[in-house]
């Protein structure tokens, strides 16, 4: 089996999710690492990793609509916002300053947040069936601005611009994840939850992409006229792409702010959309593992620059001195996107592909 990993005796085995021994091995190693990490790492690092897991769910969503179906969307921040505020609304205190339903159970507010965002996605989708490329990107950009306006002005729902409201509570059938107990610290429990959810969302996305739906997405991306002629309904599959993408975004938005604890309407700006596009581009568009890798990369980047800072003497930590660490972070963002687009358009996953084929062909160079 290890000697001839591509030898399959029936189609079911060939088409399995992990159809080679090494894929299976890597998958279970990742699961093992996910289970073990909370025992090894500090709580602050775990918190960061949890945020990475949740950001990865959002990035997978954007990857489906932009990387797979080829519909460039700058509106991801809007869907993240819809999810975040919906969850806060469902779980919020009914007697409080802002609207709330008082249903604090994650099992309720998470799907509701996803579904409301999905509804928003379905409403936006007809634009995608009429527009292509840059025009669609511009229209989805408009969505971000409309969203920002609503989030800022609808103070009864969102707390209002600059103020915000507290996010959904991490509560499972009355069991609170944000209190320390015999099972572990809040950070440990939250990491396990985030990791489990990432696994579920990632596997579902992977299933989707290897099915007829995923093939239809790539067909639309590569040649939309030919896709129509061979029987792919363009309006239907563009709508499905937007619906699923915004469902993922809604869930990610809800969880992300539940982890942070407070939602501020100003967060859902174009910058957030660009951050997610950077995750997809740097990770590798058109792959699920790429979106995950990109999400972790972007989430951990500020932490990395902070760790590197002492090694580079002329960069200051004070925000009022000139080359400071925050500027370096912003610049690094741009440099990385440009660098990846020019030198490795397939992203982090592309680097992995190169390493893999190098060792596959070793000792020959090609």
């Amino acid at each position, binding site marked *: 089996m290890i000697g001839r990993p591509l030898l399959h005796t029936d189609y079911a085995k060939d088409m399995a999710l992990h159809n080679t021994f090494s894929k299976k091995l890597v998958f279970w190693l990742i699961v093992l690492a996910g289970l073990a990490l909370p025992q090894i790492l500090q709580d602050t690092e775990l918190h960061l990793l949890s945020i990475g897991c949740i950001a990865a769910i959002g990035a997978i969503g954007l990857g489906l609509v932009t990387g797979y179906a080829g519909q460039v969307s700058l509106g991801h921040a809007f869907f993240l916002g819809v999810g975040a505020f919906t969850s806060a609304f469902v779980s919020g205190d009914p007697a409080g300053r802002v609207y709330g339903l008082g249903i604090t159970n994650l099992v309720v507010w998470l799907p509701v947040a996803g579904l409301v965002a999905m509804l928003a996605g379905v409403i936006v989708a007809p634009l995608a069936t009429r527009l292509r490329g840059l025009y669609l990107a511009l229209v989805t950009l408009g969505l971000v601005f409309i969203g920002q306006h609503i989030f800022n002005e609808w103070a009864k729902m969102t707390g209002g611009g600059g103020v915000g409201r507290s996010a959904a509570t991490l509560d499972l059938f009355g069991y609170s994840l944000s209190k320390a107990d015999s099972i572990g610290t809040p950070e440990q429990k939250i990491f396990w939850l985030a990791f489990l959810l990432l696994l579920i969302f990632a596997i579902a996305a992977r299933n989707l992409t290897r099915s*007829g739906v995923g093939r*239809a997405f*790539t067909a639309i991306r*590569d040649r939309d*006229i030919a896709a129509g*002629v*061979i029987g792919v309904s363009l309006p239907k599959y563009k709508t499905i792409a937007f619906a699923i993408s915004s469902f993922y975004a809604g869930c990610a938005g809800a969880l992300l702010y539940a982890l942070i604890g407070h939602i501020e309407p100003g967060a859902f700006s174009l910058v957030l959309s660009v951050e997610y596009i950077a995750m997809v581009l740097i990770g590798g568009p058109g792959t699920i593992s790429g979106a995950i890798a990109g999400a972790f990369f972007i989430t951990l980047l500020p932490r990395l620059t902070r760790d590197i800072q002492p090694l580079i003497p002329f960069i200051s930590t004070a925000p009022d001195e000139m080359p400071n660490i925050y500027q370096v972070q912003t610049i690094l963002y741009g440099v990385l996107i440009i660098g990846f687009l020019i030198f490795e358009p397939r992203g982090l996953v592309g680097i992995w592909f190169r390493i893999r084929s190098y060792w596959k062909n070793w000792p020959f160079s090609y």
Partner: protein
Amino acid sequence: MTVLTFEDVHLSFAGVKAIDGVTFHVGQNELFAIIGPNGAGKTSIFNVLSGVYRPQAGRVTFNGADLKGKRPHEIAALGMARTFQNVELFANLTVLENLTLGRHHHLRYGTLAALLWLGKARRDEIAHRRKAEEIIDFLELEQWRRYPVGLLPYGVQKRVELGRALAMEPKLLLLDEPVAGMNQEETEDMARYILDIRDELQLPIILVEHDMGLVMDLADRVMVVDFGQTVATGLPSDIQHDPAVIKAYLGVTS
């Protein structure tokens, strides 16, 4: 029995009359060829048939269904498959994925089932894989199965495109210049596949082609078009000697 009727169709782009009153019909198991000089409107006829263009006037009936106002994917679902003059494959996908995409309108599971990949979705996918493998077998594409089609030689890409059309299990096959740009050997291979398709699968075919040798050898009937109008329709042997056809191709001395 008539599979397709194309009645007095008019299609124009601003002042240009791409199709100007063309009429023809295609029967069961017939290999019907359309020839004509460049810009005569052959590909426009195909684009009207597959729903990419909408004609201003005329009537197209396919197996009793009126194609007026139907979108490309609806026409595909009725059983019309086509290949393109310039290969229109999904270059980043493998041969296998391209062929399976041809089976798209035979898929019987929904998006939710796809997300879970359980039961119906899994069984359906495996069944379609088996069908795609039959096409691979038929067109001798085994060695290319897992290659992204963008990396394959042109002749093989043309064959994959034919395969994708066949995977649709069509009731009518439209071939737009299947041997354009091919060498002698590739042309003969393709001719063999076309004959196999007609004889083994009992499929009516409409063929647009510039290779006169191929058209005269394979076609049951030939229609000649020029400037969007029918010049002549008939048996290949009659067409070759038709003065109007010779005039369209070579011109006349005054």
